[in-house]
């Protein structure tokens, strides 16, 4: 690869971000116990959670920012990955649950005698690690095939994905769906033999999230540089022209949809052990919309925008829910309206926006003079 000035700058930013990300677990492990530089385990897991959100936002950006498909079921894929991981974690509790049974507590409660067959393979961590990817991938493939085949696009695609989320969410709320009903999974104990509440486990989960974030970034930039990525952006800009040039846009869109679902699933799998539970509210339609807002705030179609958006919005959300519990929804809602109206390119685009404004002003002044 030729290192042009642009590329050098990108690699520089990438290394800087990687360094910053690794600062948090290092401070937690070796930093001081108190003072400005101290970093508690709670904060590490909090930031780990934000990072999984950032990955989720990046996966949506792949679809919305670069392919022009506004997908409102991203949180569904996220939750599916989370549920797959949750099944493994539930089985790892073993006989330490409230009912001292090898079955998960909610199953004992519902009167199950033995583990349902589709739960059996989740004793294996590696099967789980695979399922985290292929379960959301499969759902995306089936739905995407049906949707893209009948040329559902634009707004209709968004509405249908929202309906899909709604339907599956209703399903998970049911008790007899063997996924814990509206309580979902909680009360995890171990992951890969290590206690989930250990400081070192928290750190490792954070590091895994950070690595996934960096890998997702590499996938995104690799994709954009490839031919697939070029076609992808061409579809965003004008699908009809791509069609007329002889490309089957259906299969391109399907590949990207499945890839994006898998990334979201992996992010969900890392989210669950760090938060300590998952329930169907994680896949409500409103959550998917929130992800869209993160991307919009950060800047859609930019490489780091979604990450910045996800982290900033969530930090802001944490702050407002504490400071103004009654008004935070109004503040957030107002913020979304403002972002859409005044910052079409998001935070990342502000610099460009200001620059073009100034240039406009200057040219006006010169013409007047």
């Amino acid at each position, binding site marked *: 690869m030729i290192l042009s000035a642009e590329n050098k700058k990108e690699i520089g930013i990438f290394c800087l971000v990687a360094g910053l990300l690794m600062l948090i677990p290092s401070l937690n492990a070796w930093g001081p116990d108190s003072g400005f530089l101290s970093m508690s385990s709670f904060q590490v897991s909090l930031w780990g959670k934000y990072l999984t959100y950032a990955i989720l936002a990046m996966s949506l950006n792949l679809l919305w920012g670069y392919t022009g498909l506004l997908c409102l079921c991203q949180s569904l894929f996220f939750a599916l990955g989370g549920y797959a991981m949750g099944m493994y974690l539930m089985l790892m509790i073993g006989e330490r649950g409230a009912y001292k049974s090898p079955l998960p507590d909610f199953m004992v409660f519902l009167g199950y005698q033995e583990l349902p067959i589709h739960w059996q393979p989740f004793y294996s961590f590696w099967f789980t690690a695979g399922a985290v990817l292929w379960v959301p991938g499969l759902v995306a493939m089936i739905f995407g095939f049906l949707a893209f085949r009948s*040329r559902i696009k634009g707004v209709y695609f968004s509405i249908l994905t929202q*309906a899909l989320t*709604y339907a599956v969410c209703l399903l998970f709320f049911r008790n007899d769906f063997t996924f814990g009903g509206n309580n979902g999974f909680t009360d995890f104990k171990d992951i890969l033999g290590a206690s989930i509440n250990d400081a070192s486990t928290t750190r490792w989960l954070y590091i895994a999230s950070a690595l996934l974030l960096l890998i997702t970034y590499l996938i995104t930039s690799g994709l954009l540089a490839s031919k697939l990525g070029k076609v992808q952006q061409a579809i965003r800009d004008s699908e009809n022209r791509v069609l007329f040039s002889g490309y089957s846009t259906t299969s391109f869109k399907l590949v990207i949809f499945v890839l994006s679902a898998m990334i979201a699933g992996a992010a969900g799998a890392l989210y669950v052990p760090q938060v300590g539970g998952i329930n169907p509210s994680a896949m409500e339609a409103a959550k998917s919309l929130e992800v869209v807002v993160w991307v919009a705030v950060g800047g859609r179609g930019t490489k780091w925008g979604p990450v910045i958006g996800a982290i900033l919005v969530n930090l802001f959300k944490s702050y407002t829910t504490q400071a103004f519990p009654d008004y935070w929804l109004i503040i957030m809602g107002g913020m979304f309206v403002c972002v859409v109206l005044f910052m079409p390119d998001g935070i990342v685009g502000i610099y460009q926006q200001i620059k073009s404004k100034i240039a406009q002003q200057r040219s006006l002044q010169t013409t007047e003079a």
Partner: protein
Amino acid sequence: MSELILATGDEQAALIEEIANYGDPVIAEIYEAWRTGGVYTFESDTGLQLLQFTELQEWVLVSTGEVVPLSEADADRVEKERASRSVRKSMKSIIDTLGLKAEDANVRIDSAIKMGRSQKMEFVPALEARLLVEPSKEVKQAIEEALAISLLENGDAEQKLAAVKDLTKMKSIAARGFIEKVLQAERDAARAQGPLALASANALLVIEEHVKIMEFLGSFFRGFSTGSVLLIVSFGLAITFGLMGIINMAHGEFVAIGGYTTYMVQTFFMNQWGLSSEAFGWYFVVSLPLSFLMAAGIGLLLEKTIIRFLYRRPLESLLCTWGISMVMQQGFRLIFGAANVQVNNPTWLMGNLSVGGFSMSYTRLFIMFVALLVVLLTWLLLRKTNLGLHIRAVMQNRSMASSLGIPVARVNSMTFALGCGLAALGGSVLSQIGNVGPLMGQQYIVDSFMVVVIGSVGNLLGAGISAMGIGFVDQLLQPSLGPVMGKITVFFVIILFLQWRPGGLFPTRSRSLDD
């Protein structure tokens, strides 16, 4: 009345009967209070007063129902008035049968059914006596049914057989369990081939058949009314989304505005004229247009400030209106509280219309009527008025309409306001069958979008048909699959339907590439 309670012995028994013949429901209430020891005498300055201690911890004058403020000292001087044992007993059966003499035919039917179900011998004379003087045909039927059910338990073999045959003729669903019991008793007595057993078995078959027909009619009716609700809620969306291209995620909140406006109007009427007054019945008639205007006004404001920047940017409109929906939801919570508020049905919407034994609630019928009205008025507005012409022109081609001198900005605001107003109309109607709360619109929003997509965007006829279709499919699937699985199946049916007809029911033909 006061005479009665203060009288003694035989006089009391005679008076009880006499007063009961007035048939006023208040009498039952007072009797009940007296029987359980809730009536007191009080020696006041103006003479002896009869008081009743109500559930609200207030002293009420028995004769007029006025609240009497009593001081602590006075309260101590109040004496409990006890009814003697024989009086209590005769009162008990009078209270039970008093319902038969009530003014309201529905109350009479209810009490007849209740008495029949209890299968007590002592009610039979009362029922028979009432049958002779009962003017209403429906009540007569109910009493006959009650008598037959009662005889199933109490009559001799002959009477039982006659009763079973009567019930077969009446296709009485209420009697099913009782006939089963008779059949079981006959079988236990080794008379499975006896005339009574055979008649019972036959009766069960006939009733079963009848139940099936009723169930079918029931799901038909429910499907129609679910469809009507969907139709009213989604018609506004068909206009804002279908015609204008604005994905209004706040549509559900406009539905809630309708519900809350109805609530406010109701509260106003309640404070002004009281819950039981004649005027209160009119609140719903007032609240329907008012909620339309309220939401249309807010919609107009929203269009002028925010929405007008979002034409031709559907995805941005989705995000922006979602923000607006969050703000509005929290606004409702701050103003009305997070819990649902209570909206009462006006009296003229209570009860059922019963045709051939099949009953339809007035609220549901009213909703269908409103849905029909909405469709008709919208169609007239869009097809027969100047504004409608302008709306259609602007929606088809904004710039061309503008160059032809149509005031595009004004038409846009009017259209958006119309869509919001229709949503609120839906909310106002929904307040009669469901909860009014900050999230009330959210339940319908996904379904409404489906309706618009299936019905082909921008096609109001399509929206109407698809709303009805979704309502029917939903109600047909619900009995076998349950509400949740039914709903999920509907979604998958919709997705599969779009494989077959991607453009919905009535796709618009256009030469434009991006349609």
